[in-house]
């Protein structure tokens, strides 16, 4: 394997890792919004979900 293709492979790997990290952040953002947002309407809409998931509520 040449140095160049090694470099290409490394870049591809780190970019794939970065994409996975980004996906995880997106997931945390969604859970945070539904489960932890203080906005009253969001709280009321997701009320039963929050209780069932043991998210701190009220």
């Amino acid at each position: 394997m040449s140095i160049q293709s090694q470099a290409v492979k490394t870049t591809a790997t780190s970019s794939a890792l970065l994409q996975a990290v980004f996906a995880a952040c997106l997931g945390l953002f969604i859970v945070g919004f539904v489960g932890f947002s203080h906005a009253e309407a969001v709280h009321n809409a997701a009320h039963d979900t929050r209780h069932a998931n043991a998210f701190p509520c009220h």
Partner: protein
Amino acid sequence: MFRSIVFSAVVAGIVSGIAVSVMQMAGTTPLIIAAEAYETAAPAAEPAPAPHAHAPGTAPHDHGHDHAAPVATSAHSHDAGHDHGEGWAPADGFERTAYTMAANVLTAIGYALVLTAALSIARQTGATGEGGWRMGLAFGLAGFASVMLAPMVGLPPELPGSPAAELGARQTWWIATALATAAGIALLAFRREPWAAVLAVLLIAAPHVIGTPLPPEGEHPLAPLALERQFIVAATVTSFLFWALVGSLSGALLQRFEKDAAPAR
């Protein structure tokens, strides 16, 4: 890669979000609604006796509210005496069920994204082998331990009308506990050195040694203890089944989509 993760997570999230909604309809939701009847009844309970002490024979009249409290649930009022919910709320019945289902599916997609991403990172870094549904199930159980079991030691699932410490403090403790537990489990699973095991044990124990924000002294839940216990059991079992499902689905789907996405490898 991003597309495989998102696609797996969305499919796993929709399926398990719907499944969890069905389980909640039978398990937790009726208990929440029963507890709300006590909650709604409570603020009216103190001023009620005086104006309602009619002499026998007094003409019945309409007070515009229901004082046969713990039976009716139609007036899901988010008002008086409790610091939650002014403003818009979905109407009871279909609307509330629909919003709960939407929130369940969104939460499931969110958790599935984290889970699938973790599976992908573990595989890419060589921490795990092939993946697949069994690996997904193991990750799902780790998720259950991190976001359900560990936080519920200090902050058990609560029915409406339970006394509690200030919301922000509880949220901070909850998130810190979930993160510390997840980190501890990851260390135990992926590192073989003794220091990692020691650190993992400390991380998992620390939030509970530090202690959870406690409810104010002298306050009691409005709902009966039996209802509360039933709710904790129902919520925990539902969560366990949810994580087992979302984990195995995420593992199986990710493996499949990655194969489709990279046929040359």
